[in-house]
């Protein structure tokens, strides 16, 4: 069984370990990936960088998985991790309220000042009614992350998890490593 994976950095894209050709870097890379591999979801252009990154990475991942798309399901969770939470959106929103003489708090910016919005965007796109969770930690620590993922299978409804690290510092500095993890029988042992 292939363990599907997608990795995106400002200057590289890998799907299942193989490089994906692209022309752009940084913020423009995410738009290029959207136009080349998705194209039919204009809400993309409203998203903050974290959501754009998580969205295109999840699209590439689910295309690689090759299962039927957009079928309502409750057995797949979306559990993501990062370091900077919603820092890029927070900074963008702060700019709308920083100057008392030019005070224009923007609801369109404020809505993205929560890191878990990206899990919601992926759930909406794919009609996933299962668990969505977002965790923030200083380091991309594989042992802590895998512990959380194994724990999540204690919910008997959850049979697979779209998971991984999705972090962005600003519009041009970001990193995503996404995977799909299926429930294995051995996880049940860990419940007791």
């Amino acid at each position, binding site marked *: 069984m292939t363990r599907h994976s997608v990795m995106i950095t400002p200057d590289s894209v890998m799907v299942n370990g193989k490089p994906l050709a692209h022309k752009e870097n940084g913020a423009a890379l995410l738009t290029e990936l959207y136009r080349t591999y998705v194209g039919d979801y204009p809400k993309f252009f409203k998203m903050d960088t974290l959501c754009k990154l998580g969205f295109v990475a999840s699209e590439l991942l689910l295309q690689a998985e090759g299962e039927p798309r957009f079928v309502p399901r409750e057995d797949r969770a979306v559990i993501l991790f990062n370091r900077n939470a919603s820092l890029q959106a*927070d900074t963008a929103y*702060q700019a709308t309220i920083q100057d008392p003489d030019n005070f224009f708090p923007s609801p369109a910016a404020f809505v993205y000042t929560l890191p878990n919005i990206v899990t919601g965007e992926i*759930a*909406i796109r794919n009609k996933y009614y299962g668990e*969505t969770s977002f*965790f923030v*930690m200083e380091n991309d620590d594989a042992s802590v992350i895998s512990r959380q993922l194994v724990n999540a299978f204690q919910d008997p409804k959850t049979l697979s998890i779209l998971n991984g690290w999705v972090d962005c510092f600003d519009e041009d500095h970001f990193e995503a490593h996404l995977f799909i993890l299926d429930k294995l029988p051995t996880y049940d042992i860990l419940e007791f």
Partner: protein
Amino acid sequence: MIVKVSDNIISPLGMSTAENYAAVKEGRSELQRHDGLWGLPEPFTASLMNREAVNEMAKQKGIDDQYTFFEKMIVLSVAKALEQTSIDPASDKVLFILSTTKGNVFLLDKRETGFPAERVRLGMAAKQMTDYFHNPNAPIVVSNACISGVCAQIQAMRELESGNFDYVITVGADVQSAFIVSGFQSFKALSVDPCKPFDANRSGLNLGDASATIIFTRRDSVSENDWVAFRGAIRNDANHISGPSRTGEGSYRALRAVLGDLNPEKLAFINTHGTATLYNDEMESVAIERAGLARVPVNGLKGYYGHTMGAAGILETILSMQAIDDCNILATKGFETIGVTHPLILSNQNQPTDKRAFIKLLSGFGGCNAALLMAKGGAV
């Protein structure tokens, strides 16, 4: 089973669980109108801490001004919850889980210069806390919008079920700032008057400062007075990032998941999110009706505290446990006339109960919803 060992609430209504419960039972609130606070052009109503009192109490614990106000709130709440136990927080068998949405976000304001910029990262704020207690484990921060406090408890249950730790300390907090208040104002989500959950004339939510802690452990057998975290579930609406589902999809599914084959007659009440926005309260009524729970009493506590964000799920769970210990269903302050499509059993007066279980329900931005079934004595 996963059992509550200890708890604490720090809020404008008191510095302990007992003080907070007594205040709420008496119907008190510190929701007040603020004009011109933090340079905000529009007035707002919120339940805010006396920051000098927190600073003074922190100083007594050796928590100096190298800690932000947010960090003082979480460290103090955990310290007060630990005081009632013999747990060594420095043990590697103790895990800290922090529930927050915005942590030290005020540090993004260019006028704030007293702290290193890195402390805006939630993991760094959490590390301030674990360093204070000399705990060696990487703290987990749950940042799932308004449902974070219930998610943190579900996470604690899972870590303990897995046998990874002996104790999990879950602490939830948010402190209000120009960032948060102006954002909710821009959404037109705030009421300028004290909020009125589920009421026909409700017009939005109020915000509040609070921190709250529950310490959990795992036991093979429980006594009749032990509070057991029985079952939790998190589900998504898969509908909209900033508006609840009209069918209450995620809350309905979370409620069904925690109910299992439980007879709803066993439930004393459902403690709702009850923010007093038009859409949230309507959605909850739909979800509760769909889940077959329309005959279970419901209440909401935002009329006492406002929406305390990362603290809400923990604070409201603690008060619900206290209420059942006191054979009481707490009044929904601010509620007068039912204003949701599906009639719910609500009261603005405390009501007696002899039942021993409740469900805590929350929903939040990102379409997320969470439910937690708590049972006294573990039998439901």
